[in-house]
């Protein structure tokens, strides 16, 4: 089977302006959404707070749960159905995390017991994070990401050239902003595992980009007289089949994970899916064109052999 014909010669480089506009628009929407929402919708991992996951034995009205929470002065907590409706599972989230971290989940349990009867529900998960730990985790997450970028910048500069590294890293920043933006637009919760997903996206997207770079490097050596724009375009075309196929297999497994992995892992898989799609796009339309844009702004006098 052959999806991408070998003689394909799509003019990717000619579409740079369109691609940059699309990306810029997506980034603007993402940033705008983040501004409107006042930053990402931080889960308790980062904001601190309490999360309780309860599974009721029978179908339960969300309003009844809500009113029993209001009875103990927790009316402002977020109640969310978790997973499929027939699971009768709810997440109760509150920003409250006093010094006395152990108290809150107990109060929730007691209140539910008196409203629905003891044993009519099961507390399946309790997470309590103090505000101090939340801040530290956020700092650590950002640090890890920045360090990963620097490490890649160094590695790609060493294996290729500095401008390639810059192109690759900018593409990564692009991927991360858009993924975070999608989460913000959908008002999805931003948790620890989402940061893990972002770091994975970084790893995946750069992998994709490197494959294209590698081909550019090879073609530059093979045809040193050819214009860079042409070399880049033919390199993207030559690796297109691989780029599409690999992304396809990864998307296949992510869809399996999304549909069969359960609610706990859903957001994680979702973030990866968005990231892989955006990452594949950026490897083609962002990373290499940036190298080209750099070349046009400041032509390298003599390209290295």
């Amino acid at each position, binding site marked *: *089977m052959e999806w991408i014909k*070998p003689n394909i010669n799509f003019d990717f480089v000619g579409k740079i302006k369109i691609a940059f506009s699309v990306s810029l628009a997506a980034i603007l929407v993402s940033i705008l959404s983040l501004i409107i929402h006042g930053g990402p919708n931080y889960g308790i991992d980062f904001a601190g707070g309490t999360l309780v996951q309860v599974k009721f034995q029978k179908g339960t009205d969300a309003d009844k749960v809500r009113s029993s929470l209001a009875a103990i002065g927790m009316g402002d907590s977020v109640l969310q159905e978790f997973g499929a409706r027939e699971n009768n599972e709810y997440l109760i989230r509150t920003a409250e995390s006093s010094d006395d971290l152990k108290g809150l989940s107990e109060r929730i349990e007691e209140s539910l017991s008196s409203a629905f009867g003891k044993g009519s529900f099961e507390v399946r998960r309790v*997470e309590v994070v103090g505000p101090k730990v939340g801040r530290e985790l956020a700092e650590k997450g950002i640090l890890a990401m920045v360090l990963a970028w620097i490490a890649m910048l160094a590695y790609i500069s060493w294996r290729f050239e500095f401008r390639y590294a810059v192109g690759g890293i900018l593409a990564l920043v692009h991927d991360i902003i858009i993924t975070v933006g999608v989460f913000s637009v959908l008002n999805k919760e931003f948790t620890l595992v989402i940061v893990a997903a972002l770091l994975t996206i970084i*790893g995946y997207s750069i992998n994709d980009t490197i494959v294209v770079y590698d081909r550019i490097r090879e073609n530059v050596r093979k045809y040193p007289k050819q214009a860079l724009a042409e070399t880049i375009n033919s390199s993207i075309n030559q690796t297109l089949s691989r780029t599409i196929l690999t992304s396809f297999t990864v998307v296949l*497994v992510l869809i399996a994970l999304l549909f069969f992995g359960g609610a706990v892992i859903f957001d994680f*898989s979702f973030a990866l899916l968005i990231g892989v799609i955006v990452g594949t796009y950026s490897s083609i339309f962002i990373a290499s064109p940036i190298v080209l844009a750099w070349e046009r702004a400041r032509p390298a006098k003599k390209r290295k052999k």
Partner: protein
Amino acid sequence: MFQDIRLRTLIALAVCLVGLYFLIPSIVPNLPDSLKNLFMKRKIQLGLDLQGGMHLIMEVDSQKAMESTMERFANNLKESLMARKIKFRNVERTGDSLVSLDLSATETRSEFEKILSEQYPDLEVKSSEVVESRERVVLKVKDKRVDELRRAALEQSVETIRNRVDQFGVTEPEIVPQGDNRILIQLPGIKDPKRAVNLIGKTALLEFKLLDEENSLEQAMRGNIPTGDILARGVRLDERTGQRTELYYLLKEKTLLTGQNLEYAQVKISDRFGEPYVAIKFDAQGAKDFDRITSENVGRRLAIVLDGVVHSAPVIKERISGGEAQITGTFTTEEARDLAIVLRAGALPAPVKVLEQRTVGPSLGQDSIDKGIMATLIGFLLVVVFMVVYYRLSGLVANVAVLLNIILILGTMAAFQATLTLPGIAGIILVIGMAVDANVLIFERTREELRTGKTPRAAIDAGYDKAFLTILDSNVTTLLAAMFLFQFGTGPVKGFAVTLSVGIVASMFTAIFVTRIIFDYFAWKRKIKTISI
């Protein structure tokens, strides 16, 4: 690379067998005894999110720990000075980390310094001044010892918590210090998280203090607390209604005896009302002190204070020798049992605070395992079918590599007793998708080479050779990301970083080395004219 197919086959088989060897104990739970001894005991550990359990991060209050250390120094210093017959006044802790005292005669200064250097290497004189023929000395902990003392408080806390958890009965708990003043606690399979937190987080500082019956409690509650006194809260249980009410006591601040001198603590049930209480017995020194305290204060009330809360304040009816006492109060049997545990395990050197608590119930863990396995199988099938459809026989070869890859990931994890978490399972699934990438790269390259009119053998050689550097460069960068992920993550996320990293490294071996053997075999030995690719 290796020219000899037989040698390469042997290496591949050996790696595969080693992987299987480590993996078998993890996937075959009930090995017959005769086989069991053949294998290592090492297994893949399940993370708390899969087997259920509780993850806690506690913070030791370093300042309080320092205060109580200084308190102890002050008390010991008193005794040392008395033993040497040096006259002094007002030994006390001032601030969080200073001890001050007045030497009655300036001549004793040199002898005092001798005691200091002999018995208290941690302390040094911060300042001293002569006031009215008395010498006021302020002591502080030597700068370089401050960290060590803090460290010691942390280690003692870890030790105490470990003792408590052991008595509570948790299999394979993990209790380790983290950073300057934190303790990470992992309790797999815990049934009653509430109780566990109470048990672990209790300082359990048991103190005996006299009630101040001369001054008015009412006055004190209005804010006029006499010097040398403290106001303490207590709880009273109404036996008829079962309701708990709060009440206050005015206590002498001085602690007469602490739980440090306990020999044992046990739950007993009283004969009269059938209510639980904790029987305690002091060690030799404690019994002696208790004997003295009770004989000196017959007729007065002695408060039993646990973590600042008065449990009871019985009247001392007579001198008590033998060092046995009871803590009665307002407990359920379970509370009494936990109190006995914490008293036996000893007090924490300072209060601890829960910074983070994550509990996963066992049913959710099992759910996650089931769904994780399901998703892995489906993801695997989708990829395997796709590869065969797209690359035909060559796809089959790539699938062998993927299967081997999974065996190697799990085998390596078992060998290092790494922890598998739910995101870790996701990592394996992701690796399945990414592992075929190396083969896709090779196959696409081989197809390109075939199009230029090369023979199968030459095309395969060129495909592998040219794709190799690409695979290396792209995987190194992914591995870099995984490394930072590992550094960043806690528990479940770390598990993901582990499977991802192992998977990437293993995929280089399976997708490049192993598949090449198969292709070379057909190209060299069978001299095939066309490749099914």
